[in-house]
């Protein structure tokens, strides 16, 4: 007689199934969706906000909004796309609100020991936590100088490597608007970097 092995039934539900269950009234299933997406959302939020509590606030807002708007999800597109669009828009709103109170200035990020140009050439190792923190601070300081729209476009296009079409889908803007915004964003960023360099030169001389 052949021994039959009983394998546990795979209990991995798809995002769409989970959404259906939550909309149906089982709110507890939303926790599974949160657990599934929170690392990605935290990774994204930390690209926009240097302060950990700000990132946590945004992530909380994203999940609360998702829950509130879950019934409007039609299921025509994958849940992931719908959710990422909502997340990016929430980050954009939070950035716009935060624009009026910058935390650091360019002068704060001028280093005594090493020039800014040299720092750009050396990406610290993953084990070098202090170096990584300093590098992130530098990136935040430059990106804090540009507008919220420019920052969203720069992050999506230059740092995450998304295409114009993808950015248009995520942000809900037209492709031509994304192109215009990308051009303006590069211009704003170039100006911020030049400001940084000119200050450094002034201090050195």
């Amino acid at each position, binding site marked *: 007689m052949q021994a039959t092995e009983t394998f546990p039934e795979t209990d991995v539900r798809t995002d769409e199934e989970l959404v259906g269950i939550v909309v149906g009234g089982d709110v507890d299933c*939303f*926790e599974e969706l949160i657990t599934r997406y*929170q690392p990605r959302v935290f990774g994204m939020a930390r*690209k926009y906000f240097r302060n950990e509590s700000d990132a946590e606030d945004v992530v909380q807002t994203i999940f609360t909004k998702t829950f509130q708007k879950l019934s409007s999800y039609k299921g025509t597109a994958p849940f992931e796309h719908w959710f990422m669009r909502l997340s990016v828009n929430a980050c954009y709103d939070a950035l716009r609100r935060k624009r009026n109170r910058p935390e650091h200035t360019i002068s704060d990020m001028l280093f005594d020991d090493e020039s800014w140009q040299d720092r*750009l*050439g050396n990406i610290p190792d993953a084990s070098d936590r202090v170096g990584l923190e300093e590098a992130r601070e530098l990136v935040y300081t430059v990106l804090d100088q540009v507008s919220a729209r420019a920052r969203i476009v720069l992050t999506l296009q230059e740092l995450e490597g998304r295409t114009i079409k993808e950015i248009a889908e995520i942000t809900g803007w037209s492709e031509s608007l994304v192109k215009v915004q990308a051009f303006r964003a590069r211009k704003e960023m170039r100006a911020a*970097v030049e400001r940084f360099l000119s200050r450094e030169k002034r201090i050195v001389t």
Partner: protein
Amino acid sequence: MTANEIEKKLLKLAKSVQNDKRASVKFSARVMTRVREQHALETSSADERFLKFARNLPGNEHVPYAFEKRIMARIRELLTPDPLAFWSRMLWRAVAPCFGVMILAALFSAKEPTAAFIDQAAFDPAETTTETVDPESTDFETVMLASFDDLEYTW
């Protein structure tokens, strides 16, 4: 043969070559590498270097402990009905209709006396010259002041 052994062998070989015959290949290669690096650094603009730097930084996807529990607690809080919030929401919703009713009432009260006056003048022109006294208002006044009239007698 390990890398160290190869290096030692090459070093020995290099030392064996006479000074005047020594080719500066190694030195020039080293210099050229540095020159190329410097050239690449100078030709790429500062903003491109910055973007490259930012792109290559590792992301941080760390999630605080039991963060999903915190969000679930917040969501459950949202689901429980708050009577005070419901009341204030209803009050805010009532603002516009109440304002509309107020304006309508004000308009009617402003228009009514003139309309009554015109109607009266049309039917009875003699009445327009004398002061018209509404009998209902005199009755109302008598009823309201009845208790005070009694007071006079008690004094």
